[in-house]
């Protein structure tokens, strides 16, 4: 069994090695074909083609030098496009952007380059798109090439073994990870009788902030930084999943698809591990099946099918404000342009928030979403399971949690209200400042907090950093759960022995024991109802249940068993 376990781990490491290899063995060559495959707008493609000059058909071994010249070519191409547009617009340069363009065009190439990079850094996708729309409608000019396209250009310029045997490499990687982790999980858990298997959790490096944990943490953080801010570094891996993307939607893969694939595979494979680990508990088995199902279908496959049908590729289980861009102009506009389905999606999103969230949370607590449906929860409950014990149970952590999570809820609510008022008043409220706040929220909360910190710190702060300290949807659920819900974790009278397993394994950092040893029900806003406290309790003291709201919150109960005490001290 030990040999099998090691063999499984070896296969997974081979898979990881293969990914790293694939990031390094390719060379890159910009061709007319790769440009045309990436850029739909033929005018843009022409401009880039003519601006590329020496770069064209030249082989680059280094992705960095390739991207450097590619950026220069795009800058040149954009200069050409602007020059062309300015030539057209000479008569009506009344708007400020026109004037800016004009001054820009007289500047040297170097300075122009800086401007592009600055524009890229703040990623004014919305702004550009909106401006571009008006420009192209009024003047029929060509838009500047969005520098975001670089990643896809690199992907489509990949040449070498990966390009020749794309599917082979894809399935080889998937097979190594799948086979490896399945063998590992089976060998690990089937060698033990069903039951809690937390032996050595605080002795293994990976689950006790050891060297392996540091390596994994750094790896995760590096991956997220590349994914969010330097996705072209992952272009080879995006190329790797191309065949899957074509099979699902008929389109090539992008960085989002790569992330979705990795995420779903992680939930699926580590969900299998979770399933085996808790195979003695029906609640855990059903719950694990549920999160895995929702990740694979709602978050991954259904959006791809929608994309294939040329419909808005929405994750229909994602709810505002976790889905913070739901009310943002481009999403509303996209939905409005998609007829009945678009309207349905809009109404569905609203109904989830206004009807389903309060109703379901009243009946079942926030767990129906957080540990049964949600994608973030899905990852936490599968891949994150080995790290759940690392969440801080200090009261000080609880204080920080409450300040942070409700502040973020207030902030995203404010941004959304401004956005909506803006939408209905055509930008009279705070104008472009709205977009700026949206961008900053997306950057700070959407990327840094939810992604880099939320997942990158799994090995140090546990699996629910985002859900506990950041997620504004979790905050809404929490308020309902605390004040108006039938859900609670019941404490079984005086049976608690204060051992601390429940608190230790609470991923949300709830000091469960503090309640259990007092004979008090656990009614906490943050509880996601994963049920692991009840699993690890050696005395069967805890039970998750939905029931009458009377007596649900029992502050300072009298512990059963001692008739000497009639009133509370």
């Amino acid at each position, binding site marked *: 069994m030990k040999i099998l376990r090691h063999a499984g781990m070896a296969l997974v490491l081979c898979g990881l090695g293969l990914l790293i290899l694939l990031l390094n063995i390719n060379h890159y060559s910009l061709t007319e074909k790769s440009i045309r495959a990436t850029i739909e707008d033929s005018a843009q493609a022409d401009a880039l083609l003519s601006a590329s000059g020496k770069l064209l058909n030249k082989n680059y071994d280094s992705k960095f030098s390739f991207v450097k010249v590619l950026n220069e070519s795009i800058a040149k191409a954009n200069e050409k496009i602007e020059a062309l547009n300015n030539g057209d617009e000479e008569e009506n340069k009344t708007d400020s952007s026109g004037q800016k363009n004009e001054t820009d065009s007289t500047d040297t190439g170097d300075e122009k380059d800086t401007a592009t990079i600055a524009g890229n850094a703040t990623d004014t996708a919305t702004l550009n798109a909106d401006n571009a729309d008006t420009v192209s409608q009024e003047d029929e000019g060509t838009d500047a090439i969005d520098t975001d396209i670089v990643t896809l250009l690199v992907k489509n310029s990949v040449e070498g073994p990966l390009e020749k045997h794309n599917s082979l490499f894809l399935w080889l990687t998937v097979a190594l990870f799948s086979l490896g982790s399945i063998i590992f999980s089976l060998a690990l858990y089937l060698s033990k009788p069903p039951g809690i298997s937390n032996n050595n959790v605080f002795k293994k490096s990976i689950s006790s902030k050891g060297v392996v944990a540091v390596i994994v943490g750094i790896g995760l953080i590096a991956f997220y930084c590349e994914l969010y801010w330097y996705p072209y570094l992952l272009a080879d891996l995006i190329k790797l999943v191309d065949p899957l993307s074509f099979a699902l939607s008929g389109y090539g893969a992008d960085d989002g698809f790569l992330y979705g694939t990795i995420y779903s595979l992680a939930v699926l494979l580590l969900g299998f591990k979770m399933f085996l680990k808790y195979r003695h508990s029906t609640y855990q088995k059903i719950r694990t099946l549920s999160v895995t199902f929702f990740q694979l279908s709602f978050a991954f496959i259904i959006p791809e099918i929608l994309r294939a049908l040329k419909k808005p590729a929405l994750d229909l289980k994602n709810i505002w404000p976790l889905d913070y861009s739901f009310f943002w102009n481009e999403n509303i506009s996209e939905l409005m342009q998609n007829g009945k389905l678009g309207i349905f999606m809009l109404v569905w999103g609203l109904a989830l928030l206004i009807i389903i969230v309060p109703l379901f949370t009243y009946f079942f607590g926030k767990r129906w979403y957080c540990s049964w449906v949600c994608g973030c929860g899905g990852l936490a409950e599968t891949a994150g399971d080995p790290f759940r014990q690392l969440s801080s149970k200090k009261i000080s952590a609880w204080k920080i949690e409450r300040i942070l999570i409700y502040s973020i809820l207030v902030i995203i609510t404010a941004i959304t209200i401004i956005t909506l008022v803006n939408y209905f008043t055509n930008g009279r409220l705070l104008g472009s400042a709205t977009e700026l706040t949206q961008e900053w929220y997306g950057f700070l909360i959407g990327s840094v907090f939810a992604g880099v910190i939320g997942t990158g710190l799994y090995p140090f702060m546990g699996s629910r950093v985002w859900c506990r300290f950041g997620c504004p949807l979790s905050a809404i659920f929490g308020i309902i759960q605390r004040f108006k819900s039938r859900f609670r974790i019941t404490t079984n009278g005086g049976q608690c*022995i204060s051992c601390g397993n429940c608190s230790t394994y609470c991923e949300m950092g709830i000091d469960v024991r503090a309640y259990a040893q007092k004979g008090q029900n656990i009614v906490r806003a943050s509880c996601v109802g994963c049920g692991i406290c009840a699993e690890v309790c*050696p005395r069967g003291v805890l039970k998750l249940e939905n029931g009458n709201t009377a007596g649900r919150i029992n502050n300072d109960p009298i512990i059963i068993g001692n008739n000497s005490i009639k009133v509370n001290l």
Partner: protein
Amino acid sequence: MRKIVIIGNGISGVTCARNIRKKCDDEITIISGETEHFFSRTALMYIYMGHMKYEHTKPYEDWFWAKNRITLVTDYVSSVDTKNKTLHTKDKKIIPFDILIIASGSVTKKFDWPGQDLKGVVSLYSFQDLAEIETRTKDIKNAVIVGGGLIGIELAEMLHSRGIEVTMLVTEKYYWNGILPQSDAELVGKHITSNGIKVLYETGLKEITGDASDNVQSITTTTDKTIKCPLIGITTGVTPNISFLKDSGIETDKGILVNSFFETNITDVYAIGDCAEFREPVNGRKTIEQVWYTGRMHGETLAQTIAVGKTAYNPGPWFNSAKFLNLEYQTYGTVSAKIKEEETFFHWQHPGKYIAFTAVYNNASKEFIGVNVFGLKLRHEYLDKWLQEKVSIEYVLSNLPLAFFYKEFSGSYTTDIIESYNKQTGSAVQIAVKKKSFSFLNFK
């Protein structure tokens, strides 16, 4: 302001201190040489197995004590001077008190076996015991555990988790048969064996043999079998820790003798928890109560006396719980190992799984007396109520769905249990409470 000094920072002493603090402003000092802060003794096994670290076993954060003005002294009490109302410690400190609460717990009970003090003879009670086990179990292949009770199985599980081959010596015919009726004891024994732990029944310890450097080498059993082993765990029970009270004038027998108010023979000196021995059994219970829950109840009750007004110890129906490896066990009321004449046992066991339900009731009145459950959990609230109301066994069975405390989606065995009862007794008990489908739609 009275100076209240508590010896021992276990569950009894700490519960007492906390509850006194809630109601009054007296000076409170807790003395313990074991650890600076209160930790959960019951979790020692989980530290060893790597489920938790020591810090996780502390129910209160370290700032808690100063915030609640509870002074902690890390020291052992070496003697008590009741005349001058002072304590003398190992570090030669003299601590005065107005009220003394002794909650010094237990020590491992040994039976003067030859070789019992050799290196490698360990027990599992204190934090220091755990450290000893940790050092003594590096690179060992097998071990023998003497005594098959609740601590014995914990130690067995600990060693087993590190791949150490464990042999348990149990003097009874079945596992924990002094407490459990045969059917239950057999079930537990089977579960233990099925997990790869060897149990030798009707076997005790005769002597331990050491090598030249006083390390344990082997043991000889009462059946004259010799087992070579580098480690021997003694888990034959605990006895009150009272050796430091010699010459203090505090009356002791096995433990510190107290009345139902936890008063010793000396005014303002009380004893609670494992170390206390009731002069008269309270509510028909044992005179020495050595479990977590009773320690807590002693502490609560004495705090009431000290902070509010004189309160007698009046425990409700007995309850306890344990876990034998993966087998959960709960008991409510009185289920004795040997059936009494006026009692009837009802035993149900799942045909394939380690799940069992054993109830005891009075032959004539059918009054429900107690229940043991394995692999099932019952609600303390209902069992406590039913035992106090002295309801009948049939009432209990027909209301069983109310009392089950199982996880959502897990199977219910109510029908099997009731059917089995009806078959065994020729009764026609039916479930009185039906769980309504869509009960969550019941707005209340």
